[in-house]
């Protein structure tokens, strides 16, 4: 692994002691998945060693050797959550192809390299007294869930994952409906989560409604909700569970720098002195559900 043109040794970023790397990571796997998803696994031990669930990578979509010529599209990097860390050596992202950047990345091949910066942002806070994590994921919010689950399970936390999508075929993983009346995702079970999959088209409800149904059962000391997915879902999750349980949400916002410098990716947070703007890339992407000023979130 080489660091491109920058210093070859990563240095402490800023003054908060976090380590951020920029490197050209060799691609170990590049696989088309169902529903327009794509898996990229790169060798990046420096990142794997320090990454926390909920953190993300800032990815240059083009061939790293072309960094000296300006592109027309995908001029900016693209943020993707760390989806898994393999033995601390390899890092996986799970991307839904939405636009030009995703399309480019899905065309990258084993043997090529990915120019990436990471790990970035603050991930999920895992408190010492956490006993049960209710992980609620909608759509491409599934991406960080495997890494989050593995980490929680390794810390002895029970993981109850409620995963929602419009339909069974909107998921990167095959939906298993072998057990009557219950749908699950085996890859998520394999990493230790108790999974309930909720397809709006099949179950006739949203994942936030599934959460509501099980809220009482799951509430209690040491329980917390961790939610990833579209803003509308996150807002609903906070509304539903925010009174009974602590809720952490992972937000998305358009980024430029990815490191907290340019103030592109701010979200409104209610602080002591009213609403302040916090960056998704550095202060987030994970925030306490209660601190977000949802009505000012825009779009």
């Amino acid at each position, binding site marked *: 692994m080489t660091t491109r043109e920058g210093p070859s040794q990563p240095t402490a970023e800023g003054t908060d002691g976090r380590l951020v790397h920029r490197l050209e990571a060799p691609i170990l796997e590049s696989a088309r998945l169902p529903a327009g998803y794509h898996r990229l696994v790169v060798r990046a031990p420096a990142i794997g060693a320090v990454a926390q669930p909920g953190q993300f990578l800032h990815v240059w979509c083009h061939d790293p050797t072309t960094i*000296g010529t300006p592109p027309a599209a995908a*001029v900016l990097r693209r943020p993707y959550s760390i989806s898994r860390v393999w033995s601390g050596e390899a890092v996986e992202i799970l991307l839904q192809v939405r636009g030009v950047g995703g399309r480019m990345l899905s065309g990258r091949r084993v043997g090529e390299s990915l120019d990436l910066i990471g790990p970035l942002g603050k991930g999920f806070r895992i408190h010492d007294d956490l006993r049960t994590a209710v992980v609620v994921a909608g759509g491409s919010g599934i991406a960080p869930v495997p890494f989050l689950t593995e980490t929680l399970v390794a810390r002895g936390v029970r993981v109850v994952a409620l995963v929602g999508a419009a339909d069974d075929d909107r998921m990167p993983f095959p939906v298993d409906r072998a057990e009557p009346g219950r749908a699950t995702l085996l890859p998520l079970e394999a990493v230790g989560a108790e999974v309930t999959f909720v397809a709006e088209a099949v179950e006739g409800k949203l994942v936030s409604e599934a959460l509501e149904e099980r809220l009482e059962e799951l509430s209690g000391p040491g329980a917390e909700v961790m939610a990833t997915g579209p803003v509308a879902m996150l807002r609903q999750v906070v509304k539903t569970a925010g009174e009974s349980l602590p809720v952490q949400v992972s937000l998305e916002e358009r980024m430029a720098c990815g490191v907290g410098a340019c103030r592109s990716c701010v979200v409104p947070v209610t602080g002591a002195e009213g609403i302040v703007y916090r960056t998704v890339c550095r202060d987030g992407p994970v925030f306490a559900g209660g601190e977000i000023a949802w009505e000012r979130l825009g779009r």
Partner: protein
Amino acid sequence: MGASGTVSGPDLSVQIGSLTLKNPVMVASGIFGYGDEFRGLADYGELGALVLKTVTREPRPGNPPASRTVETPAGMVNAIGLENVGVEALVEEKLPLALSYGTAVIASIAGDTPEDFAACAEILDDTPVSAIEINISCPNVRKGGMAFGVDAWASAQVVRAVRPATRKPLIAKLTPNVTDICAIARACAAAGADAVSLVNTFSAMVVDVETRRPVLAANTGGLSGPAIRPAAVLRTFQVARAVSAPVIGMGGIWNASDALEFIIAGASAVAVGTVLFADPAAGNRVLAGIREYLVRHRLDSLQELVGSITLRDGD
């Protein structure tokens, strides 16, 4: 990459008023905040100067979120809206970290009135910043900003107000969204600016055709990146011929060849902006390329290149 780092390499130093920069490659304002966030991603201390995010007298929240930036062909449009911690927090909390890079740090200031600018400059006068850039060209604020920069008289008013507030070299940052940028450059120079920098962004808009709303929460923003480079090079060329003060050129620089276009057209120094979002080490890459070019062309100093363009006969 040739003679980079050798003691006997070409002389890359640049004079901006009383300030000597070790080389001509700067980081543009607003790109990397107050300098600390990018730390470790490249050797920023190697560059000629770091221009910090524009600050105002009081902290400002900036434009509402979602979205503040959007990508466009070979460029991006931003509408951050001068979110900043205020000049006092800059001096107390941010400056020591920026100065620790070991290269020149330039503060950038803005305000709603000439007095606001002067107040910022006065506070900065007591600090180790190497120079002050007067941002009269931000397209993303309603009052101040570009409202000054589009008018020669108003621009001069700001520079005249700031001039007595500090002994630091003053750089007036110009907007390209004007009919006659040379008139504004001349007015700023006459009012006491030691240098001018250009271009700030071209005002722009991106529409989401599905929602039929602007993508930017502020509706409009400023276009930067490679897309604007040829327009920025021309304005640099024009201004360099209009004023004797040194010119700092920027707008879409992506590589050394781009930077050399500005220098040959008349810029004494250049700044990298948008490219740093893609390549945090772009400034170092540009610097190495400029050095390599000088060596290859057997030029002893950068000065020989500045404004060395030979015009075509024309018709």
